[in-house]
């Protein structure tokens, strides 16, 4: 197993009375694309700043390639950061912006010009832009210039602070594909902070979910999506259904669970489908909306009677909101078809396979 490129060990940081990071540990392998996601204020940007060197932790270590980064300024770290606001120097041309890091290292002019040209080609920017100023370029083009400026010094670690959040949807998709392409081509390790989950799921090898200064879960996108560590992650990562259950017993084979809302209300869920730390007592059964089918009669392991309340058509998919027993609100997503299988007010049966569920602990605080 390759040695970690970036190692964060128990990072703690407070600003006055406010604790921004409460003991964060993370390992990033070389060449990985890892996304940091979480609600605003969760500390993902603060963490990024710690890696870049703009902040030093109160306690804990930042280690890159085995070297401690304590007291090492940003200029001396093998990292480069792309800021949310891009921070392109308005008084320098595009060429001067991109070449700036090399100029600081006193690289000779001819070489700088050559490398800048290389970058321009890599970023698919038109050569005549070299003489222009940042404000004369479009948002997407400015992004590429910012990326070029960070890549030109060949950093080991590229840090991106919500770089695409200000762009419109179409441009975002184009640049997301760009980032993926660059990552594959250059083999640089990317740490990408974003609040756009779709983006994280699309681009990252691993996703790190943060909340209130702590890491809740780190894993591959599918892992996090289908096997979230807790209710918060489950709800944060995508639309989900959380059904209250009672875990009566757990052993190596699985959990014997009582699910009042289902027609077959006792089942044993295999160990692989239990969240770590699950115990006897109240818990939640998670089933993703796209894994539910609408049935006329029986035919699934888990079934639940429900009445359709709302239908939201999203073009390619259609979302149905139905109310089941005990007032349970269920969300179902089906591929969109011109003929809708159900209408508002219909009473039908929802069904899904037992292997598609995941049990997570019930959160301590309400809601």
């Amino acid at each position, binding site marked *: 197993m390759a040695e970690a490129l970036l190692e964060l060990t128990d990072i703690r940081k407070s600003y006055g009375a406010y604790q921004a990071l409460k003991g964060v540990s993370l390992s990033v392998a070389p060449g990985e694309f890892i996304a940091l996601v979480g609600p605003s204020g969760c500390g993902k940007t603060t963490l990024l700043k710690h890696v870049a060197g703009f902040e030093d932790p109160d306690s804990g270590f930042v280690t890159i390639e085995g070297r401690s980064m304590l007291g090492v*300024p*940003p200029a001396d770290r093998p990292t480069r950061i792309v800021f949310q606001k891009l921070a392109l120097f308005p*008084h320098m041309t595009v060429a001067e912006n991109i070449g700036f890091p090399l100029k*600081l290292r006193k690289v000779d002019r001819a070489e700088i010009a050559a490398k800048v040209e290389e970058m321009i080609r890599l970023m698919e920017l038109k050569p005549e832009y070299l003489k222009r100023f940042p404000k004369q370029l479009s948002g997407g083009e400015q992004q590429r210039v910012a990326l070029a400026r960070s890549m030109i010094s060949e950093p080991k670690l590229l840090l991106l602070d919500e770089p695409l959040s200000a762009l419109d949807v179409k441009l975002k998709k184009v640049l997301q594909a760009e980032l993926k392409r660059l990552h594959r081509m250059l083999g640089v390790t990317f740490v990408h902070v974003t609040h756009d989950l779709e983006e994280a799921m699309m681009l990252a090898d691993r996703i790190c979910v943060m909340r209130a200064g702590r890491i809740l879960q780190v894993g591959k996108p599918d892992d996090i999506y289908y096997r979230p560590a807790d209710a918060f992650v489950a709800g944060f990562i995508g639309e989900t259904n959380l059904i209250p259950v009672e875990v009566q017993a757990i052993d190596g084979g699985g959990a014997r669970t009582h699910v009042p809302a289902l027609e077959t209300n006792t089942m044993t869920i295999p160990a692989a489908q239990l969240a770590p730390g699950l115990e006897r007592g109240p818990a939640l059964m998670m089933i993703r909306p796209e894994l539910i089918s609408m049935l006329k009669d029986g035919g699934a392991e888990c079934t639940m009677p429900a009445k359709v309340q709302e239908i939201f058509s999203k073009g390619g998919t259609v979302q149905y909101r139905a109310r089941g027993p005990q007032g349970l609100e269920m969300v179902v997503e089906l591929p969109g078809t011109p003929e809708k299988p159900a209408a508002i007010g219909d009473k039908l049966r929802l069904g899904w396979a037992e292997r598609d569920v995941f049990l997570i602990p019930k959160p301590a605080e309400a809601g």
Partner: protein
Amino acid sequence: MNPRAQSAIAGIALYGTTAAVLIFFYVPIFTLIAFSFQEGRYLTLPLDGLSLKWYGALLDNAGARQALGNSTVIAAIATLFATAIGTVSAIAAVRYRFRGRAGFMGLAAAPLAFPQLLLGIMLLLWFSVLGRWLDFNMGLTTAIIGHVVCITPFVMVIVAVQVFTFDPTLEDAARDSGASNWQVYRYVTLPLLWPGIFSAAIFAFLLSWGNFYLTYSLAGSARTLPTFVFAGIAVGSSPLYPAIATVIFIPGLVLVILADRLRRRAAAA
């Protein structure tokens, strides 16, 4: 009353007042310029005749020439110090958080609201007492110090506005690119703040150039243009003084326009 009529009335009131105020501002200035072309010795209307002879007299007048020289020297040196101190104070006040920041800002800005004459008098007393101790007299140096004390807050306020709108992420980006502190200043901070600093310097120069109260108290026997003019008014007016005025106005106007251009260029960046 419908909105259109309201808008029209408001418009007339606003434009009208602004125009009136502008005319108001330029009444004495145009009066001076007009009288500088007066042929005769007395400042009366109708004008005796038009001539440039007073401009000529200006060049001959030794007192006027010396006053011009003194004004320039004082303004140049005072501008240098006021701009330097004002700029760094502005950066510190706007960008840094530190204990006593409010007190610092208050102290640095205090002379702004203090009546200049009284400031001049206080400094006069101070320098007189010190002068007896350390054996020096009132003169150009004391005038320069007085100017610097009074003008630095102005510079600080002007530059502070510039610093406030300066995006500090740019400096972070420079540091991330590998720049040392010095390189950050050289390649990013100063080039971007420069237009604002320069226009503040122009302000400082003009404030010193036109300063009366402080020079009056602190320059001792040396005269600058304002005190020279004042002494002249006291004795008896002649078109010589309007001529001086016009001569002073022209570079002043040029500098103000220059400062405005710079400020706009800085804002656009």
